[in-house]
């Protein structure tokens, strides 16, 4: 249960990160470099949070 919850939350964070990367691509192509860079940073932060949750999920699962 804990594993599934953590994986779902990690997946949600990765999806949100990809959305931010897509928006950053949009902004960069419109030459809005500052906004694009800020969106990239937000995406990286969300990815990092997702990675942490995925790692916790792996560690929370009993070894087989």
């Amino acid at each position, binding site marked *: 249960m804990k594993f599934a919850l953590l994986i779902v939350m990690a997946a949600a964070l990765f999806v949100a990160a990809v959305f931010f990367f897509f928006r950053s691509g949009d902004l960069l192509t419109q*030459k809005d470099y500052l906004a694009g860079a800020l969106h990239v940073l937000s*995406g*990286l932060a969300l990815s990092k949070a997702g990675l*942490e949750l995925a790692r916790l999920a792996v560690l929370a699962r009993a070894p*087989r």
Partner: protein
Amino acid sequence: MPLPRSLPLIVSGLVFTTLSIALPMLHLRLQPSGITLLFLALPPAVLVVMLLAPRSPALSHFAFPLAHLPMMLAHPELTGPRVYAGATGLVAFLAVVGAGAAYLVATTPRLTTSRARPELLVTLGALLALAPLLALAGPALAADTAPWASLTCLALGPLIAWWLVARGFVQQVALPAVDPALRARAFYLLRARVRPRPMTFVFAAIMSALALALLAFWYLWSPR
């Protein structure tokens, strides 16, 4: 290396060479002659040496990828916009990236006899690498995009994918999932990290105060 174990290595290496050199040559109708024939034979030759020699990261992660360079330098159009332009170019580029990833997976030694499913982890890793690549390449390859803006996007995609997968997913999730020793080490590091230390609290308090001060400054004195 026994043949069944080296089969993924042979297949992924040959697919990578085919996609990055042979198919672009056919697409551009290039006729190899003289020294370029030698350049073309270089990657398969390195692959054969890799199969005969003991497992060596210098060969697998350095010599084989570099063996493609002479041909690409002799014919720069193989990696040019005539091959990788437009939607079909994007598909070709992704195929080359996928073949490269498959080759890296094939050359990575199995660390454990754990029953964890590496296929699932490899698929997840590939998805995680492709997602930011596609998210950033999509807007960059749209029509009427400034060249420098497109290049920025196209350069950012692989960097983010590398950071996310090679530095993050593989090290922190995939390896602890398949290797009990690395799992135990990750447990130890996690416990060491969450153990409270005075300096951590001081640093967190300073950063929080700074963030709140910036927020207050922005709302109170921002020129709007």
